[in-house]
């Protein structure tokens, strides 16, 4: 028996997605005369994508299990509001407010999951109901007001890790990755499987390190004012785009807020590290735990999974629970990012999360998808948003283009599967 590292279809799909993202970046970089890939814009872009990214992580498992969750956008608004009420109005300490909000998110998710799994109401309907119910609830609770949150809370959205901590994290990531590669190699060797040669492993470590260092440089380069290129034309964003409600884009001039925070020691944005951590954890859950396996089995073939001894109902409920939990995280980050909780926060985000998953190669039929793909999908969406906004493309054209990209991405996926 030979091999394990040959390019299987999943690897190829991942590569295609990465190249698509790169192509989009290069195109915009040229089209925007070098603004797009400036340190400031890259930082901004990954910050933008973090909220949709977090939602996409939860959505991915739901879709893989063969379901859909349309309520996550409303849950962002709902839990953003709930967390700010707990913290600002009731006066809980921040850890308590956040813990309770997250638990609440899990429970609400499980509830929707239970309706789907145990009462057999289609997930589409349950979560469509949820979409209306949670939006209505938070509007009723907040009485249409917005609640401002203080600096302590805002860290989750607008905060940055210091350079020292950022460098430590980057170093740890590289060490961990190297260890992981060598461990894999050892295991494969032990079972007589074909393993990569040392130079290949080293090459992988070097490219990973280069990748990490590049982003570290991008994030720290933000400190230097001269790196930022001024944008003088007004930026237009579609009203329902995730960008529209974030304050950078509420200013006509792109540079205002970006340069305003310079001078402080800041590197990795907190929402980005939150998203990466969640991606790692849920990625691990999806591939290395019994729960993750079961979710893929249920989505791949529910009947076969049942006959193999898998409890379909319970696991389906948990998947929704996890999605609810991640929606609560996204709600907190979103509120922190805006500096206040608004009852209409996160409207339409469910569609962005679904689009991110689908662009990332997730099959809506269930059983297929990767966290990596979903994150890339979120980055592609954010890149299109950011690039077209810098190019000052009219909002309605932006929507048309994003819609077309979504359809094109799925077509490429379908067409490539047919060939196999």
């Amino acid at each position, binding site marked *: *028996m030979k091999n394990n590292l040959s390019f299987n279809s999943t690897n190829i799909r991942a590569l295609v997605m990465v190249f698509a993202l790169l192509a989009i970046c290069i195109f915009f970089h040229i089209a925007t005369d070098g603004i797009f890939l400036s340190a400031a814009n890259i930082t901004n872009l990954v910050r933008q994508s973090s909220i949709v990214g977090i939602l996409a992580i939860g959505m991915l498992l739901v879709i893989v299990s063969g379901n859909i969750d349309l309520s996550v956008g409303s849950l962002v608004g709902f839990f953003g509001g709930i967390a700010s009420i707990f913290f600002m109005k009731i006066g809980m300490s921040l850890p308590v407010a956040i813990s309770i909000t997250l638990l609440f998110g899990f429970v609400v998710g499980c509830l929707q999951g239970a309706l789907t799994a145990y009462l057999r109401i289609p997930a589409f309907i349950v979560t469509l109901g949820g979409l209306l119910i949670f939006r209505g609830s938070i509007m009723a609770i907040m009485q249409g007001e917005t609640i401002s949150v203080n600096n302590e809370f805002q860290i989750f959205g607008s905060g940055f890790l210091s350079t020292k901590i950022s460098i430590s994290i980057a170093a740890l990531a590289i060490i961990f990755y190297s260890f992981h590669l060598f461990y894999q190699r050892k295991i494969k060797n032990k079972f*007589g*499987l074909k393993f990569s040669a040392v130079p290949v492993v080293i090459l992988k470590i070097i490219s990973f390190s280069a990748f990490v260092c590049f982003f570290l440089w991008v994030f720290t380069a933000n400190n230097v004012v001269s790196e930022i290129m001024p944008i003088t034309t007004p930026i237009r964003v579609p009203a329902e785009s995730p960008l529209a409600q974030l304050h950078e884009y509420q200013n006509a001039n792109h540079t205002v807020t970006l340069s305003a925070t310079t001078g402080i020691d800041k590197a990795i944005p907190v929402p980005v590290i939150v998203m990466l951590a969640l991606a790692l954890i849920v990625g691990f859950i999806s591939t290395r*735990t019994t729960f993750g396996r079961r979710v893929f089995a249920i989505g*791949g073939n529910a009947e076969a*999974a049942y006959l193999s*001894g898998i409890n379909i109902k319970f696991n389906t409920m948990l998947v929704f629970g996890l999605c609810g939990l991640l929606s609560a995280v996204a709600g907190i980050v979103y509120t922190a990012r805006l500096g206040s909780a608004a009852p209409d926060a996160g409207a339409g985000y469910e569609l962005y999360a679904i689009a991110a998953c689908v662009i990332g190669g997730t099959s809506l039929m269930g059983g297929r998808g990767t966290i990596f793909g979903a994150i890339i999908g979120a980055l592609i969406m954010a890149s299109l948003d950011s690039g077209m906004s810098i190019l000052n493309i009219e909002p309605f054209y932006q929507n048309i283009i994003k819609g077309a990209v979504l359809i094109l991405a799925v077509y490429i996926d379908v067409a490539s599967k047919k060939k196999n």
Partner: protein
Amino acid sequence: MSFLEIKNISKQFGDVYALKEISFSVAQGEIHAVCGENGAGKSTLIKILNGVYSSGNYEGNFSIDGNEIHFKNIHEAEAAGVAVIHQELSLVKTMSVAENIFLGNEPSRFGIIQRHQIHVVAKKLLEQVGLTVSPETEVSELGIGEQQLVEIAKALNKNARLLILDEPTTALTETETEKLFDLLQQLQTSGVTIIYISHRLKEIKSLCNRVTVLRDGKFIATKVVVYNINNSGTTQIQAEPNFSEKELIKLMVGREITELYPKTQTKTGLKVLELKNYSLFDSSRKRKIDSVNLEVRSGEILGIAGLMGSGRTELLMGIIGAWKGKQDGEILFNNKKVKFNSPAEAIANGIALVSEDRKRLGLILPQSIRFNLNLSTMKNISSVGILSGGKEMKRTLEMIQQLSVKTNSTETEVQQLSGGNQQKVVIGKCLLVNPKLLLLDEPTRGIDVGARAEIYELMNKLVNEGMAIIMVSSDLSEVIGMSNRIVVMNEGKISGDFSSGVTQEEIMMAATSEHQFEN
């Protein structure tokens, strides 16, 4: 001259011939039975006659009324007057009887359906088939027998000249069957030619003029059943006075048990499973399994034979805890009374099932061999829910080697494997459970001879190690060759219990007739 003349038709799937050089003819106005074991090629033949397999996708040809036919699709076949009544009825249950009769064929003016006309014609057709319901009744409100009559009315509306019925009485009651036979004979008198596909010898005897036997995709014989045919056709058929059910069965099963089955003598041990008065009911409270009593001992292969729909699969689903409806009676496992609410519980107790349809019920197709093999036993290779890559890889590689699954990687998606290797993965998944009782439902269906022999060898090895196996199979030579004991199921009941030295004819007799057989 014959109405339908089939000349040298062959149909290949990959390397396997589903039909090989079939030739026979059907006279105008004849009711002609086609029979054979499961997998003899009957369904394939139907699909060629009604255009599902379009001209060019098979070799040979056939002619209707002397004209050579090349159907491109089902619509052309329908236009030429060929209609098939399938085992699973193809009515739209949420539409009315009249709408179904005219489905795809609605009389319309400028795209607007002529409702009045539909009802008038539908009413006439319903009278013709002897169904006394309003054309406006929704199909879902009708019983299976009535739905079948609606199907026939639909065929008549399309001026069917050749009516093909595929096992039409499987779901019918006695009275419904009689009613159907009356109608078929009436249609015969009016000049419709009928091909009647059935296993049931009694029906063939009381309804059909001639019978053609297929076996393993080959034409075996055409026999005359009755003396005269009362039709307007011109063909005269000579009588065959010594037609017998026995002879027909012999023609159907034919082949001798080959060296394929390396039967070994094993020591049977303690009782592993016992069913007492075990019954299963479907959602409409119909008995699918009727007071079954059976037992299996360790070191023993119990074969379950029977026709499709006789309740064999349902019985296995009941044992494994996957039956959704009501159950009755007792299951004793290792002499303890048990009731499994899910396959998970059965698996935890040491019962594993290799289901009959590996693609639909056995495998997660887009996932790897490793993923599938370990699906039922994840708790053995994990702690606190986290899988151990090392343990998993070890078990995967051992199982791949033990079953000699042909693959170059543990990460190959199972959908890329051949049927035989897919089946090995399903069996491997079950063996990892370390079962005391292994249920095999059609374990060698659609598998090449090489993989078959390997699976038989494995079964013998497992019972030698003390496992108990229940094997459901439609392949009679396999059942006889592999089993220590054989029970035959017939309409949810056990109609035969044989220890050894039983012939295929005896099994077939028990599977098709109403008497009890034992030796």
